[in-house]
């Protein structure tokens, strides 16, 4: 096994609290010089959409309706007790008042520390998304085989 410190996350969840977990791990590991890769698939792709609110993305009616309902980083639901989207806003307020980094701060810190973000090609195809729908910091669009090569020799976590 290579001695490079490396952590790879498979981020399938598009939930607010799990996104916080992913970016807390990612930024923390990057700060102590780990190479960090995050592979976003299915609902996780919502976190990296360029439009952070609800937008009609994709070509067909179903794609557009589906992407509108899923939304982006500003509309991620809490995995429990979401209360129609109120809870993530309350939680962000709590985090600010208690001086804990918010999701946006963790996200920005991860980008600043060089965390590598990848989008899953197959999930993009299923959801009718294209690379231009994501933030420009997305390093590449990958399949499983390439991600396995990237993550080889380090820790891999599924969120």
């Amino acid at each position: 096994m290579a001695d490079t410190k490396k952590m790879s996350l498979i981020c399938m969840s598009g939930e607010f609290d799990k996104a916080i977990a992913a970016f807390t791990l990612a930024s923390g590991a990057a700060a102590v010089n780990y190479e960090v890769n995050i592979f976003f698939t299915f609902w996780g792709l919502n976190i990296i959409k360029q439009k952070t609110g609800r937008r009609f993305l994709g070509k067909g009616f179903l794609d557009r309706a589906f992407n509108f309902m899923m939304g982006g980083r500003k509309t991620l639901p809490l995995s429990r007790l979401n209360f129609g989207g109120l809870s993530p806003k309350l939680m962000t307020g709590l985090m600010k008042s208690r001086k804990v980094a918010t999701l946006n701060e963790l996200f920005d810190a991860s980008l600043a520390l060089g965390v590598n973000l990848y989008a899953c090609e197959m999930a993009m195809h299923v959801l009718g998304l294209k690379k231009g729908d994501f933030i420009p910091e997305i390093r590449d669009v990958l399949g499983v085989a390439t991600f396995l090569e990237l993550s080889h020799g380090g820790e891999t976590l599924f969120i």
Partner: protein
Amino acid sequence: MTFVKTKLELEKLIAGDTLEVLLCEGEPLSNVPKTAIEQGFTVVENVHVKDNVHKLVIQKREGSPA
């Protein structure tokens, strides 16, 4: 997260510059100085300020990471 914020600020410094960080006791106080030293920075000062708050002064040396 404390070290994440510290690291982002350290990256902005040039060699010889110092960074003051206020830390709570517990995990931040045990982790931040240790990790800064591991990464090639110098901890110039680590003093108790009040209650559970400590002040850490970290200096960027020649050859410290960018």
